């Protein structure tokens, strides 16, 4: 198949709607057709070719691959609904990257904006840097958050990560801000660093594992046990972990695992273990 490379022709100023940038939309198209695909430069419809140098070269793989070279932090909705193939962004990526993605892989060598993988259904997103708020979340007012696939963020992530998450796996290499897993009903969140307050707020189900310090555990979480090993995705993580059930204001089917040695301030809970 072919490898398509996009290079920004200039520094972008206003937001650019770029949901056409998916392997499906590029597949079986000539370079000319690809260059004519519609993007929005703010409120002006224009062509991909007018904003990007587009080049292509054959490659051995059997899938369409896209490379984006440069700062595309102003681009919105790259890879929206993509089903297959792969996309690599070498530079900072904008908001809503991989929205409602169903398959394939997106790799960002840089930071990603907010709503990364929102309403994601399948596939893989990997970000070498930080991500913004609402990773893997639902649209406003909807209960349909991330339903499948996996998101790997090697840096930090912002607020409300996994908001209304239903299924799938999110792994954060460093720290998360507050309210991770808010309203989640299922799926797994693994935080290798620290978590700010209110992790697991109003979660109905699912699992959150924190290997660093948990700033505080909400009053609506109750200690269940101390466990030595916890499974997250493919991995078996050595403990011991405090295991909390929550959010009890929402039924309490969710589980929060906090590594004991990093969380001495949670020791008081041990008194409540039957």
């Amino acid at each position: 198949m072919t490898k398509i490379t996009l290079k920004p022709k200039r520094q972008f100023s206003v937001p650019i709607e770029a949901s056409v940038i998916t392997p499906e939309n590029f597949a079986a198209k000539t370079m000319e057709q690809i260059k004519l695909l519609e993007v929005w430069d703010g409120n002006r419809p224009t062509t991909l070719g007018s904003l990007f140098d587009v080049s292509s070269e054959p490659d051995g793989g059997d899938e369409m691959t896209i490379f984006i070279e440069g700062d595309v932090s102003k681009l919105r909705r790259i890879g929206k609904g993509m089903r297959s193939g792969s996309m690599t962004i070498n530079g900072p990526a904008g908001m809503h990257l991989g929205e409602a993605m169903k398959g394939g892989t997106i790799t960002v060598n840089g930071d990603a904006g907010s709503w990364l993988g929102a309403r994601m259904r399948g596939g893989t997103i990997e970000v070498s840097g930080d991500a913004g708020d609402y990773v893997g979340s639902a649209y406003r007012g909807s209960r349909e958050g991330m339903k499948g696939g996996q998101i790997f963020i090697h840096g930090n992530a912002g607020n409300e990560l996994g908001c209304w998450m239903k299924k799938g796996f999110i792994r954060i290499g460093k720290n998360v801000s507050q309210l991770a897993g808010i309203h989640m009903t299922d799926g797994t969140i693994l935080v290798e660093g620290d978590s700010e307050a209110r992790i697991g707020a109003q979660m109905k189900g699912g699992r959150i594992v924190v290997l660093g310090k948990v700033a505080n555990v909400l009053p609506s979480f109750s200690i269940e046990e101390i466990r030595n090993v916890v499974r997250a995705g493919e991995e078996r993580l050595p403990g011991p972990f405090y295991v909390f059930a929550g959010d009890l204001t929402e039924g309490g089917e969710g589980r929060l695992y906090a590594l004991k040695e990093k969380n001495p301030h949670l020791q008081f809970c041990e008194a409540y273990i039957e």
Partner: protein
Amino acid sequence: MNDELIIRNGIVVDPANDIDREVMDIAIRGGKIVRKASPSAKIIDASGMLVMPGGVDIHSHIAGSKTNAARVMRPEDHVRDFERKTALTRSGVGHSIPSTFTTGYRYARMGYTTVIEPATPPMKTRHTHEELNDIPIIDKACFPLFGNNWHVMEYLEKGDVDGCAAYIAWMLRSTKGYAIKIVNPGGVEAWHWGGNIRGLDWEVPNFGITPREIIRGLCKVNKILKLPHTIHVHPNNLGKPGNYLNTIKTMDCVKDLAEEGRAAIHITHCQFTSFKGEDWSTLRSGAEEIANYVNKVKHVTIDMGQIIFTATTTMTADGPFEYILHQLQGRKWHNTDVEAETGAGIVPVVYKRKNFVNTTQWAIGLELALLVKDPWRIYMTTDHPNAGPFTAYPRVISWLMSKKARENTMKRLNQGAVKKSNLPSLDREYSFAEMATVTRAATARALGLKDKGHLGIGADADVSIYGVNPKEVDPSNDYRAVRKAMRRAAYTIKEGEIVVRDGEIVKVIEGKTFWADARVPDDMEMKLQSELSEKFQDYYTIQAENYVIAEDYLARSAPIIPGGTR
């Protein structure tokens, strides 16, 4: 400029004038149907097309505080259904709670030209009119809510029907309302304390009055004021298994007040109040019992409230009902109680084909439409958006006109519910004339809109033309052709202007807002004013002067003088 128009060789269905699929010309001048137009008139060639009066929707929640609260609560309802700005039209969103501009365009595209907002909290009716002003093309009216109004309950508790009539007349004038709407009489006041009313003869807390007395009293008031429409009633116990008995009692409680041959009460979205059974698991259709009663009497009209299988939004002044629905389904819930008057509740729902209750509800609506013999007393609605969005009307029409359409749908439904329903045994299929009656002619007549719903000389030139030949097509088998044609009118003509062509908006005009300019004799009016000056400030947190909506607040005011000229 020439405002004349001739619709040539159309196949006209105009039940009010006993015209059934006659090939004829319709002449239009000055926004009215006329006998003859001059040779210079613009010609529309309607050969082989169905020509009917513009659609008249008697019950559709399109504007006002609760509709807007639903829009605010449900961004997820709009996000996938939007309309882009064009050179002619404004942008907007759909699906179950379309924005104002989109509402007008979508009705016009289906050939509808008059739509009634059936529930406005009087205190917030300025808001309702602001939205009606922003709904393009179609004519409109709104029904203020009176069934839980403190003044009303107090007048009727004292037995002062004349006093109540004077008050209602003042309220209709002050809010620019059209008819008396009653929702869960007494039950909404009870809900303001967290309670409800479950029977026609329960007493309303603190008011010493019963739903029966409220309904009868307002029915008398309606007569005294000679209002163009009957009282428009959403009974107690809506959505409760077994409620069909209360619905029949409600219809029957005003029987003696009816004038010979004239309707005295309209029961709205009757599907929701035609439930038999003790609970949800034993739910059955009460449509047969309801229809038998309606067929037996002359004083009742009803509309369907037909269920559509889709995600939609329920919204009603029946606050306690919505709270129960929220508890049943666990979806998000909005409630607003309005001082001294009424309330509102909103809950999103999804009607599912495989769901026993939903399938039963779907069957009830159609059974009502097929079992009530007189099409002049049963009207097509989905109680938009409660049972489904109005954009589903073409599908409802196909179910009414084709048993095959019903059977094809039934195949995909909850078979347990289908087996228990007697819908499969009903062979009736609506003719084009009957379809035109329940969507236009009869609704206009029920509303007392004399110039609507027909194509006789002097009628408003609101005409819908569809790309289907009613002489050739067999709706029973080829219901898809009818459905397709109904979705996008070939032409919609509003007040003599072509506003839609081939299902697209070609001209945007401003519709009228009808209201009842009801009056009482001076002595009654003076008594009322002195009583209001005492009570109004005790009941409301705004001043009476600021409560009144001036006529020029309406974009196009169209007062109706009850009982004809004054």
